[in-house]
């Protein structure tokens, strides 16, 4: 009997961790998603297409510089180079993590001044696009709760369906979303679709990623991301035109002085 009991305990002790590994939690999936695709430095150039409700398109050219500075924190610089009326506009973000406000500065060439801006306005629309400031920053895993709702196929790809809700009082106040439903591809741990729900619980925006490319190992990127505002009936398409993941950027690059430069 003792032997049977011992065998049962041993079997259970082996089975339980395996079971947990087979069904990771929402937070574990999001952690893998955030950490697996990390690159030390990355410079990506996009054609940003703004589509208005009549279907008219406007093109902007934007470069995004990202550096992983450790502790799951990034420094990011974003610069517009076209069209002429927004060329030179730049946004610098130093992530602070946990529940702290990020440091953010905006440079508007017409004013020739780098201005600190409030990152508490992260729910706000970014430069007339369908993206909010908070959509442009990496996922803050400490500030959200994640729950696996199940598995679903998007196209041919089997995905985890995860519900993300603000976890802290600050995030609840600062975020423009009451919840997000995120579909993460099981094979590559990359989000393919996100539904954004406003504070009233209505579906407000839809984000999709497509045209995936393998950068190296298990690091993936999407070459085309679309965010659609369902109420405004507008769309912002971010089409990648070039990507450099092999170069190096010093942390000192992410400075207010560099934000002013073309």
């Amino acid at each position, binding site marked *: 009997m003792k032997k049977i009991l011992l065998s049962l305990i041993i079997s259970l002790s082996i089975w339980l961790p395996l079971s947990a590994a087979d069904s990771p939690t929402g937070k574990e999936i999001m952690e893998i998603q955030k950490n697996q695709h990390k690159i030390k430095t990355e410079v990506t150039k996009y054609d940003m297409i*703004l589509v208005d409700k009549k279907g008219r398109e406007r093109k902007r050219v934007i470069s995004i510089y990202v550096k992983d500075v450790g502790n799951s924190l990034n420094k990011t610089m974003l610069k517009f180079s076209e069209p002429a009326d927004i060329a030179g506009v730049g946004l610098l973000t130093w992530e*602070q993590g946990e529940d702290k406000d990020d440091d953010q500065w905006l440079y508007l060439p017409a004013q020739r001044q780098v*201005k*600190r801006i*409030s990152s508490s306005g992260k729910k706000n*629309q970014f430069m007339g696009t369908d993206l909010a400031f908070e959509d442009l920053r990496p996922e803050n895993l400490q500030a959200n709760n994640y729950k696996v709702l199940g598995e679903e196929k998007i196209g041919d790809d089997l995905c985890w369906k995860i519900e993300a809700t603000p976890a802290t009082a600050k995030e609840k106040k600062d975020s423009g979303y009451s919840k997000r439903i995120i579909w993460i591809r099981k094979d590559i741990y990359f989000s393919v679709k996100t539904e954004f729900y406003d504070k009233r619980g209505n579906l407000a925006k839809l984000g999709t990623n497509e045209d995936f490319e393998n950068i190296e190992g298990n690091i993936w990127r999407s070459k085309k991301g679309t965010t659609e505002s369902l109420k405004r009936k507008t769309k912002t398409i971010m089409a990648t035109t070039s990507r450099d993941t092999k170069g190096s950027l010093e942390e000192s690059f992410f400075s*207010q*002085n560099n934000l002013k*430069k*073309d």
Partner: protein
Amino acid sequence: MYTRQLSKLIIYSLSVILSFNVYLDGDSTEDDSSGFFQQVVDNTKGELKASYFSNFDQDPRGDDKNFGHIDLKLNYKQDISDNVFLNVVGRFREDTANRTRETFGFVEDSDRPYLATIDELVFRYSGEKIEWSVGKQLFTWGVADTFRPTDQINPSDYTDLPTSEKLAVPAITLFHSHEKVDIQGVIIPAFTPTRLPGSDNRWGPDQSGLAAGFAPLFGGVTPNLDFSRREIPDKKLDTLQGGIRLTSSSLISGWDLGLTWYTGYDPIGVYRANIIPGVTPTVEMIQVFSEFQEFGASFSTTLKGAVVYGEGAFHITKDNLQEDSYFEYVLGFNYTNYDILSSVFEEIRFIVEYAGESVFDERTDNQTYFDTGQYLRPFQNSILWGIIFKHNIDTEFTFGGAYNINDGDALISPQLSHKLQNGMKIITGFDIFTGNDDSFFGRWDNNDRFSLTVEYLF
């Protein structure tokens, strides 16, 4: 007259383009030249502005009620090597009131804007942590949105007060980025004075009161006043101007801090009266520029979704000319709301500042020196504001203004801007001045106006 001046502008522009083509023809093969020309075109951005202003009242000096202005800027940017960068802004402008000079100038020390000029010309060398910039440059020190007491390097052009702008100065700049603190040192070898409006300009000095003040010296005869002379400091080693600015965004997390020191010549200066007796006596009001030092500090941080900032500077006048020593400061915030009237406006941005001044060494009027009054230290106990109602990506309405609490005078500037298509924008609005004749804004009570500007970026 306007057509004649516009033609002049076109002729100047064409001559520049033609001379450029001659250079290409002479020095290069056709393929090389077209390649080079294409590179220049690719690296050049332009801004063309045509403005029309209509004043509601006639000006006693005879300045026209209606005023037109055309302004073309061409900005050429080029990476010369991995570390060296060139930025040139050429500018052509003309107006219907003959406010520009028909000459070309590099140092902006003329009393009127040049018809053709190099607005900026900067060579920049960027090392890993050090950066040198040499040339004619514009600087922005300080953190405030509208009034910046520590922003002292560039003088201004006030020939049209509501559209006043900074004048670039020849300078050598060293920028050094440390771990937590950035240092910027600036040396300015040649002095550039502020450009004040002439006596035939509706923004110019009202001479009648001042001239009457001199009458007792001439047995009751009111003299003529002559404002044409200026005593610009010599370009010598001991008249070098310069400053240092230390800034940090990481000494205290979430705070931008700055310290500034500047020494130079006050670009507005004071007037020295020089009496020329005669049958019709004249008093020359010679603009002289007092030497000063300024020590300043600034901060900017966020608080409950707003950006809160402040800056102040001790302005210490060295010479015993008619110019006080004083401390001027500004405290303000900006806040963007996305919920108020959200069906009409995507966002409403509020900017509010309080500007004050405390004099710690007052110089009194005497018969030799007079302060220039009009443009000096306008905000001594004032509220400044801007409320920007953004309807959408193309259209916004701005309600800006300033109110001086002591004298009850104010400037109110409502403005509507609308993007017609990519790169083309139309801006229309009013500038309304109120207050007593001897107050800062009230003296221009006669200059209320409507404005319309079409701006094209290419």
